């Protein structure tokens, strides 16, 4: 007697509908996309530049946050990183760069000098870039540790994710 051959039953599975659609909110979706595709414009004026180079290159690598590709044209960037002391003589240049950036745009004050003027309290230095342009995130330190910068980028990302993102004009 031989045992009857085992047959594998053919099961006709229902087609999976797992990724047919997702439901989300427009602001969440666009915020999620935008927060990982920050194009920084490094407005680098002083010694904080060394720290900026350190944080954007290999060991710390801001590319992990989608914020590594510097655009050297304000028209192509959406994150203005003000890295270093801004003097009164330079303030009109900074304002012009800010005004040339397209919406949406965010500003990061990198280091003590951009935040508050740092230890410069004299005829030459602007005490804080928020005197002339709005700032989204301040990074303390003279210069800031790379961890502080990364924390600042993450806080900015959270802020972007929570923002409203109008993409259509009122007339549409």
């Amino acid at each position, binding site marked *: 007697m031989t045992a009857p051959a085992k047959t594998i039953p053919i099961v006709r599975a229902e087609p999976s509908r797992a990724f047919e659609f997702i439901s989300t909110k427009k602001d969440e979706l666009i915020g999620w996309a935008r927060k990982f595709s920050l194009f920084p414009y490094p407005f680098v004026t002083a010694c904080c530049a060394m720290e900026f180079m350190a944080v954007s290159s290999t060991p710390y690598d801001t590319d992990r946050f989608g914020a590594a590709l510097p655009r050297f044209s304000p028209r192509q960037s959406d994150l203005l990183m003000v890295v270093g002391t801004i003097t*009164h*003589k330079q*303030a*009109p240049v900074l*304002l012009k760069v800010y005004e040339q950036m397209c919406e949406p745009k965010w500003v990061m004050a990198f280091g003590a000098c951009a935040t508050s003027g740092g230890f410069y*309290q*004299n*005829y*030459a230095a*602007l*005490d804080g870039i*928020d*005197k*002339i*342009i*709005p*700032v*989204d995130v301040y990074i303390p330190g003279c210069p800031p540790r790379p961890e502080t910068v990364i924390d600042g980028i993450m806080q900015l990302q959270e802020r972007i994710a929570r923002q409203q993102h109008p993409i259509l004009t009122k007339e549409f």
Partner: protein
Amino acid sequence: MSDVLARVQAEMAAAAPDAALSHGVLVLPVAPAQLLEVVKRLKTGFGFDLFLDVTAVDWPGAPLRFEVVYHFYSTRDFVRVRVKTRVAEQDPTVDSLVPLYNSARFMERECHDMYGIVFRGNADLRPILLYEGFVGHPLRKDYPKRKEQPLVPYREGGS
């Protein structure tokens, strides 16, 4: 004192009787009228071919308020001299060294920015570190420490 500096001191005794050595640098206090002549002699006669710097010192209350200080270096003998001259607040004018050293052009502009010293013979005394429209001379002792002259109007409120 090196031989060169000793010779400079001996030969400049008429123009700078109070010459003395200070930290290896020969200091020559001269009258403003003799400045150009002394520097010309240093350059042509003693090989001080490198003009290092010109700056000023503000002595508030002194009858001759500003002391204009020059440094020269000899690339042949590796020695330095410092030439000082005093001018009054009412007429802070000294002769420009541009006919002797082209590099004096920008350094005199900076000194004019910061202290308001007028260099007779330097045709271009526009602001070089400061900006057009800046009132006063910030490194003078009577410039207010916290006085700022912003070019961009400040925003209302904070961020």
